[in-house]
C-alpha cells in the first residue's frame, strides 16, 4: 500500500439464526470490512485522479482477504457480494468512484473469477454516516434470494479529509427467502446476469 494511509479497519460479521421463522439449518453470515483512509484530493478540485485507482489495488486485496478470513478462511462459502464508499465532506463523490475497480476486482479475483458485476453504493457523509451496501449473487445478478443489503457506519469516520472504503460478502440467501425468481441452482448463462 504505497501511498495509502489507513487510519482504521473495522470488520463486522453477522450470523443470522432466524427472523421470526424456522431457524436456519446453516445460519447465513454477512461480513463487511471498512477501511478509513486519507483522501489525497480533499479540499480542492483535482482533474486527474486516476492514479489513486491503481494505488488502491493492494488495499482491495488486503480487505477482500480480511473478509474471507472473517468468514472462516474458505472463499468457497461466499455467495454474495457488494461494495461502497463514504467520502468525507471535503471530498467529492467522484473520489468514491475510484473504489469500483480496485474493490470489485479484488473480490472477484479472490473468489475465483466471480462473474456478476459487484453492486455498489456511494455517498458523501460526515462522522457516523451510515451506508447501505447492496448485495447480489457473485455469479448471476438476477438470483432473487440473494438480493440483500448491509448497513455499515463508523462512529468517528469519515472526517472531512477521509474516505471510508467498504467491501461486503455473504454466505447465502436471505434467511427466510421465499419470493421466487431465479434460483442459484438454475444459474447457467455464465454471463454474470442469469
Amino acid at each position, binding site marked *: 500500500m504505497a501511498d495509502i494511509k*489507513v487510519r*482504521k*479497519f*473495522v*470488520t*463486522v*460479521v453477522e450470523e*443470522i439464526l*432466524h427472523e421470526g421463522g424456522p431457524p436456519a439449518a446453516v445460519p447465513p453470515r454477512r461480513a463487511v470490512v471498512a477501511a478509513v483512509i486519507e483522501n489525497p484530493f480533499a479540499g480542492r478540485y483535482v482533474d486527474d485522479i486516476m492514479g489513486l485507482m491503481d494505488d488502491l489495488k493492494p488495499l482491495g486485496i488486503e480487505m477482500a482477504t480480511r473478509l474471507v478470513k472473517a468468514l472462516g478462511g474458505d472463499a468457497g462459502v461466499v455467495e454474495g457480494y457488494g461494495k461502497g464508499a463514504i467520502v468525507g465532506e471535503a471530498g467529492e463523490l467522484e473520489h468514491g468512484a475510484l473504489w469500483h475497480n480496485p474493490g470489485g476486482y479484488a473480490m472477484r479475483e479472490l473468489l475465483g473469477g466471480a462473474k456478476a458485476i459487484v453492486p455498489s453504493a456511494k455517498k458523501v457523509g460526515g462522522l457516523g454516516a451510515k451506508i447501505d451496501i447492496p448485495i447480489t449473487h457473485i455469479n448471476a445478478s438476477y438470483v432473487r434470494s440473494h438480493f440483500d443489503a448491509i448497513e455499515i457506519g463508523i*462512529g468517528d469516520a469519515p472526517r472531512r479529509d477521509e474516505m471510508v472504503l467498504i467491501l461486503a460478502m455473504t454466505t447465502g440467501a436471505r434467511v427466510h427467502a421465499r419470493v421466487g425468481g431465479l434460483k442459484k441452482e438454475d444459474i447457467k448463462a455464465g454471463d454474470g446476469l442469469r
Partner: protein
Amino acid sequence: MSVRIRKIVTILEETLIEEGRPVSPPTRRAAAVAVIENPLAGRYVEDLSELFAAGEELGGLLGERARAALDIPGPSVESFGKAAAVGADGGLEHAAALLHPKLGAPLRALLGKGAALIPSSKKRAGPGATFDIPLGHKDAARVRSHFDGMEVSIADAPRADEIAIAVALTDSGRPHPRVGGLRKADVKGEDGLV
C-alpha cells in the same frame, strides 16, 4: 440456550493511526452482540431469574466470540465491558437481569482473571440505535489508559420484543494515552481497583 437468539454480530476495530501518528502495534477492540427475544416483553414480571440464566450463557458465548475476533488467548485480553439495549416493550430491569447477576463469572473464567468490576451501560432503544459499551482494565479499574468505550449498532435490532446484549474486549488501551494515572505495568490485580 434458554432464550432464543435471532442473530449474533461481531465487530472488530483496529486503529492504525490516531491524531496523525502511527499506532504500533495497532490497538484493537472487539464486540460481540446477540439479539435475543425478550421473554418478558410487554408485561411486568417480578421474578427475572429466566434472564439471569440467559445472562450466564451469553457471558460465555459472547466473550468467546469477541476473544476469537481478537484472535488472542483469554489472559491476553486487557480490558472489558458490557451493555444492553432493550426494545420498546421491555424494561431496563430486563437489561440489568441479563448483565449483572451472572454474566461476569463465565466471562472472567474465559479471561483467566478479571478482578475489576465489568463496566456497563443500558438503555431502551429502537432498531439501529447506537449504544456505547464502556471499557475498563480487567484487573484494575483505575488504569487510566484503558478508560474507553466502543460504539455499536445493529440496523434491525432491537425490535420491540428483543434485547441486544453486548460484550466488548480489547488487546490494548487508548491509542496514544498520555493523561497519567495508574499504569498497566504497575497493576497488582487483587482488589480490582489497583
